[in-house]
């Protein structure tokens, strides 16, 4: 069995994962790849354009597919599926987002695969769960809507508005990676692989905060709060060079509220004295619309000639949870991230450029995760994988290529 970790690899060294997803589960396989797994992404021949998409999409594809190898196999043809089967024979996990009815027809459904590969961990990633997705087409926006996150986002006076960054794909992928690891752990005890059936809708429904509990217990349907302050001291506020966000209200400590007022008084901000009155220390008072408005005026006068970074530094020194609303350029310049050596620069030969990636989301002391390589070109590793893993002879390889199967 391929279960011996190789020296110096990540915690998943020696594990092979077949990534047969499109976008929805691709980041799951990326996470496993950075943790040391040999991840082989199976793509359709001639599908390059669809996969690379337009503009921002190609950045997304590049981000979620790095550290993987890419092979092209035409799974519509039996010869292609036979190759996939041989690859699965030599793999530990499959993450897929096949259309369910098609997979049932061609024997790539979870039950058939489990019969042929009993030790294979299978993870299906779909919009609404494998039994509920067929015949529907979705994109990030409609999934955010179905999962309940979209309803909470946006400005109170306008339509609900999506979060940036294909969060349906990220959420489904995160939980697909969790499911894959749970099943890999369980395989040792159980002696067989399990099938994990991840729903993107459900993955987003993890993010509805206290809103479902609120409806259940009080009958109140929470609406979009936007960036408007929810109470004096909590919300997004304008400053000299942009915006800051602050939590010095309900979730913050009373200490933070008093520190904030003391800071403004010390600075001689007009009206700050008024905020020292005892009623301001109580939440019900701070939640009144007039209080929110009055606080906004006083605090606005204070922040108007201060920069995001001045406010950040000053507030944190005083134990107040305030942060700049960073644009991406500011994120890349952040001194904390620089001090921790967070960003990783990678030469992308395909682009002929150096690209900056975020570093891994976690730091493991004994077996660190690391970006192995930039995203592979479409099918870049087909020959290597077929030759080295599947022991396909050169002659056979040529005929497979000529037949358009790989």
């Amino acid at each position: 069995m391929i279960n011996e970790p190789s020296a110096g690899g990540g915690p998943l060294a020696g594990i092979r994962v077949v990534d047969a997803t499109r976008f929805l589960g691709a980041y799951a396989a990326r996470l496993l790849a950075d943790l040391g797994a040999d991840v082989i992404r199976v793509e359709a021949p001639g599908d390059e354009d669809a996969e690379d998409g337009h503009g921002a999409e190609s950045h997304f594809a590049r981000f979620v597919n790095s550290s993987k190898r890419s092979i092209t196999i035409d799974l519509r043809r039996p010869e292609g599926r036979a190759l996939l089967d041989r690859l699965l024979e030599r793999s530990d996990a499959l993450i897929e987002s096949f259309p369910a009815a098609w997979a049932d027809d061609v024997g790539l459904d979870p039950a058939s695969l489990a019969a042929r590969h009993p030790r294979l961990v299978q993870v299906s990633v779909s919009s609404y769960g494998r039994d509920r997705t067929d015949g529907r087409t979705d994109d990030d926006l409609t999934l955010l809507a179905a999962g309940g996150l979209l309803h909470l986002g946006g400005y109170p006076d306008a339509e609900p508005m999506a979060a940036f960054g294909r969060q349906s794909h990220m959420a489904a992928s995160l939980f697909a990676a969790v499911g894959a690891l749970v099943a890999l752990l369980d395989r040792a005890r159980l002696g067989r692989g399990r099938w994990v059936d991840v729903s993107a809708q459900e993955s987003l429904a993890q993010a509805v905060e206290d809103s479902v509990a609120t409806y259940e217990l009080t009958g109140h349907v929470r609406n979009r709060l936007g960036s408007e302050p929810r109470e004096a001291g909590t919300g997004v506020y304008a400053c000299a060079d942009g915006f800051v966000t602050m939590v010095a209200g309900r979730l913050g400590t009373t200490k933070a509220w008093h520190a904030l007022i003391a800071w403004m008084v010390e600075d001689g901000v007009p009206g700050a004295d008024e905020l020292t009155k005892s009623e301001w220390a109580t939440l019900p008072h701070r939640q009144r619309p007039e209080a929110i408005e009055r606080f906004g005026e006083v605090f606005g006068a204070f922040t108007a000639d201060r920069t995001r970074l001045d406010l950040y530094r000053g507030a944190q020194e005083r134990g107040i949870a305030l942060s700049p609303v960073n644009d991406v350029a500011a994120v890349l310049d952040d001194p904390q991230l620089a001090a921790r050596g967070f960003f990783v620069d990678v030469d992308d030969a395909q682009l002929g450029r150096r690209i900056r990636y975020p570093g891994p989301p976690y730091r493991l002391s004994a077996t660190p995760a690391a970006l192995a390589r930039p995203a592979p070109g479409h099918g870049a590793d087909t020959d290597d994988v077929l030759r080295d893993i599947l022991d396909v002879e050169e002659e056979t390889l040529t005929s497979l290529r000529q037949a358009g199967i790989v």
Partner: protein
Amino acid sequence: MAVSPYLEGLRVLDFCWVGAGAFVTKMLADLGADVIKIESRARPDNLRVSPPRRPGTSGLESSGYFASRNSSKRSFSLDMRKPEARELAHRLAASCSVITSNFRPGVLERWGLSYEDVRADNPQIIYLTMPMQGASGPHRSFIGFGSTISALSGLMHLSGDPDRPPVGTGTHYPDHVPNPGHALVGLLAALFHRERTGEGQAIEVSQLESTINVIGSAILEQSLGATIPARNGNHATDASPRGVFACGDGEWIAISATSDQAWRDLADVLGHPEWGEDVRFCTLEDRKRHEDTLDAMVRRAVTACTRDELTRLLRARHVPAAPVNSSRDVLEDEDLVARGYWQRLAHPVIGPMAIAGPPFRIDGERPQLRSAPLLGEHTREIAQDVLGFGAAEVERLIAEGVLE
């Protein structure tokens, strides 16, 4: 009630509280791990005092928010100001496989529970911490919440209308998905490594670094420099029209025309087949150029429809469409209900309440959840079963206020 078997035998000493951390250990507990949540009456988990509550209930056992994030755990309450309590925490640490914490750097260290301390007695320990910005660097002691991490990471700035201030997700999103999700992946991978090699380790999840990864594509885009990632509302480069529209019944629908065919089908379903033939709107490029006009046309037409009917008609034509589900809608959503996403659990103070488990099924089944614990509900049984105290000794520790 059967405990889910997947992580059976995994014991977790859990110092997590409030948001992100509690979700990590909820997943472990829901999947069958024995999660011992360390609590204190002197300083209860902030969520225990957070709304919502059912009208007429109050106190530390009544928070619906706490109940929704702490299912399947056991609660062990002690007064960490007392030396004997710390001694008991050390003994628990020695007997667990995993320790989790999202305290600020320094808190566990003060209690003699640093990674080095614990490892001395328990070399195979997996030790997870989730500091806001990491345990090193100039901002290591800066404080924050999900919303401020969202702001620092760039996610907030990128979300919203390009002509208005950034709006973010309207929630503490990093606490709900990115940070618990990444923490679980790192933790489970470390467990896998330990299963194979016997080697334990420390895992640090900087909540800022974790959250930046869910907008990773924007970092690449900025570093490549040809375009600058920016707020785009509900628009996207690969679909048009794409937006959220108010229906005649006062509900919202999300629609995305991801292909020329989807656009023609959308026009047809809205009763305007002629739009599909309009030369201004033939290709994606055309539609992006006239997107404001297009949005206004669709907005007007949608007001004549009801949400669920329009969703059904569009889905039948393979046009991406979905109801914008509110907190009430998600409880009744036919997909979530059919798949058993919500489990109705009976809580002794709150009463019956819908709780979500993991967002996946395993071999076609849902793990069976248990209701969140009352504060100190399992103190006695853990003191006896895990720490090996006799009943009389446990009563002494409770009488002396060491245990609660």
